[in-house]
């Protein structure tokens, strides 16, 4: 016997949207995420490892992550956290080097002054380096950065201000407020 009730469906079920396709998500975000990891870790090899870990974590829980309002923000948050630990970066780099030995000559290198800039960014306190990388590399707004890093917009503003101030001092550049 079939039995059905007329109970009202919960409202959250009515608001379900289509699940984004992981592969499309991966293809559209991978390069930028590797770039962010590279800026924050200083190692191309470690950057790829970090990005892979973040995407694998997303893939494992894709049915959950896909429902986030901005899955790309979540991946960037994970990458930002994974990339700022110097020790873990070294471990990842060593692992990646061991696997990728035949292609170590193929590593692209940055121009000296660009490399100096990102080195100075990595020398900043963790939060400042994350904010600077997201702001300049990804051209993210204050509110977007606050969503990615899970902090308030005022916090982002403070970190951006202090980060730029320190960078200008370290790089001996003129610092102009353009917020």
């Amino acid at each position: 016997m079939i039995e059905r009730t007329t109970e009202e469906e919960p409202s959250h079920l009515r608001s379900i949207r289509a699940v984004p396709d992981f592969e499309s998500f991966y293809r559209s975000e991978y390069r930028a995420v590797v770039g962010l990891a590279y800026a924050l870790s200083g190692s191309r090899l470690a950057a790829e490892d970090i990005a892979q870990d973040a995407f694998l974590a997303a893939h494992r829980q894709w049915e959950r992550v896909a429902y986030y309002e901005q899955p790309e923000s979540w991946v960037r948050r994970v990458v930002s956290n994974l990339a700022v630990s110097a020790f873990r970066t070294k471990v990842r780099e060593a692992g990646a080097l061991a696997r990728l030995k035949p292609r170590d000559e193929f590593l692209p290198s940055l121009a000296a002054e660009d490399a100096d800039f990102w080195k100075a960014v990595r020398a900043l306190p963790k939060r400042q380096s994350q904010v600077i990388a997201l702001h300049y590399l990804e051209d993210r707004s204050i509110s977007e950065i606050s969503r990615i890093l899970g902090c308030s917009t005022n916090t982002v503003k403070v970190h951006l201000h202090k980060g730029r101030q320190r960078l200008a001092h370290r790089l001996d550049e003129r610092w102009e407020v353009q917020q």
Partner: protein
Amino acid sequence: MSIDIRARHAARGLQGSVVLVTPVALPVVTRRHRISLIAGLAGALAIAFASMAVASMLPDTNPGDDTATINPSTIPDPEIPDGQLVVLPEKDGGVAAPAVYQKNDSSTAVKPYTRFIGTAAPGIVVVATSDFGVADTVVGSSGAFDLKLFFEGAPTGVAFPVTLSVGDVDHEFHFTWLWDPQNVTITAHQTYGSSGSPTPFEKFFGTAPPGTEITITSPYGSASGEAWEEGEWYLKVFFTGAPVGEAFPVNVSVGDKSFAFSFTALFDDTIEFTVRQEGTSSSSASPYTRFIGTAAPGTHILVQSAYGSDDLEVGESGEFNLKLWFGGAPTGLKFPITLSVDHEFHGTYYFTSNYVPTPSGVNLSQYNTESWDPAPWVKFHGTAPAGTQLVALSAYGSASMTVGSSGEVYFKLYFAPLPPAGQTFPVTLKVNGSVHGVYDFTSWSDGSVDVTVNQHNTTGTDYVKFYGTAPIGTLIEIVTGSYGSVSWVTESVNWLNKLWFSPKPAAGTSFSVTVKIDGETFGTYPFSTPGAVPKTAFNTYGSCSENPPFDVYYGTAPAGTAITISSAYGGATLTADGSGNWSKQVFFSGAPLNEAFTVTVDVGGQLFYLGMVVTSP
């Protein structure tokens, strides 16, 4: 230049040089990767296996007979097709250089090799193969390569083929080894020139025709031997009694040639006595300390304490490292260690054991290493003697418990504030004050919380209970029409609350309870008190072969409830009797044979859908 301009320039530089060479698509294993595998590169094998392992977790974008999806991070996929040679113009802008050429096609050396120099697209695998050796390289970002291929066991005086594969393109070359053992150049080389060892020695080596006699002579040591079949030689000479700091001559005769070298012994046996203690306390069950220093060879070092003693004689190196183990040292008591040198007191040192014995029977394991929960926790489980104190410490909170009489442990530490997503951090578990273990934990949650509502009880007399999850600060309301309501703002992601009915509903009452989230209805849930007649509907047969076909429907409902039975081929209306029961025979005239249809029964507004099929008599 302002910091903004410089930053944006640096961002463009990074995007251009790194991000754009990263492949977007999940690449496939191509021929150049296979060449790399054939060449026996352990690294390439690691790439293939590690990549495919990772790829198995990623979506397969191009399943085919001859390809395998691999990790895009492992192998770059330049936009230049495999095997396409890139001819770089000469720096002066003149005629283009040839893409590949062989630097030498013969050799008279003991260890022969040939070199291939050329240009190709960055990332292309270049492999040189012959019957007597294989070598490979990957073209760098400059586009140039220089590959040296050594041969082993090659015949002399005979040209043999060598194939150079640049990507998919093969180039054929030849090589001839012209080594003549009797024409090997006589050479002699010295390795060090001096030594700080107490027994200094020197290594000499060189080349000479096989069988050539080599003699090394000096005032403080000599050696002799002959060149090997490969045309090489090697001799080691120890010098005894050599003056410290004064160079002396060493003559090396190789056949009829002589070579003059000099050697200086630097070892000074007047070693100053030094000692330092490493480790003055330990929490280990097997505590020890070390005494490290220098002393003249033969010096006797003795360390003594109430909980262990040891000694040694300093070796030729003049350095010593004495490890003193303690047994039965009392916890927390600083005790003395005396150190004697050649049976004379030298000094007193101290050590403290902080070892706290772990109660026997402690068996604890980590239950979970990661979590997606917005309120993440780590759990330890196992057994421990009653009364054992457990403490879990982390950067995101701590917890403690005392093991109860059952001896079973289910120990949870909730992390707050929320750890950064994806960041692994340590959790230290202490048992009775001693570190039992350090465990890694990773939280993947970014703090976002799904709203969920669950009804705990659908019947009762006093209350209805709901529980679920919601972001902190969510306004939740549990509302009934006549029996009261309750609302509150959540203070944690997991919530639970009861609505106590006021007034209490009469026995046998059925009504709805509405749950609202931030003012909007989330769901409506049924509730009844004991004694209420439930609304039910059943069919007796489900199929019929009589003419006319029929079925008998029955069920329960509160007295007087209107019941409507309807279908495309017949129906009926009735009311529940005073005892709460109802029953009705319904005929279905004109119903098609062997085609199931639905009969809808409306019991006081609650719908039931029952199946029916008419079969042949």
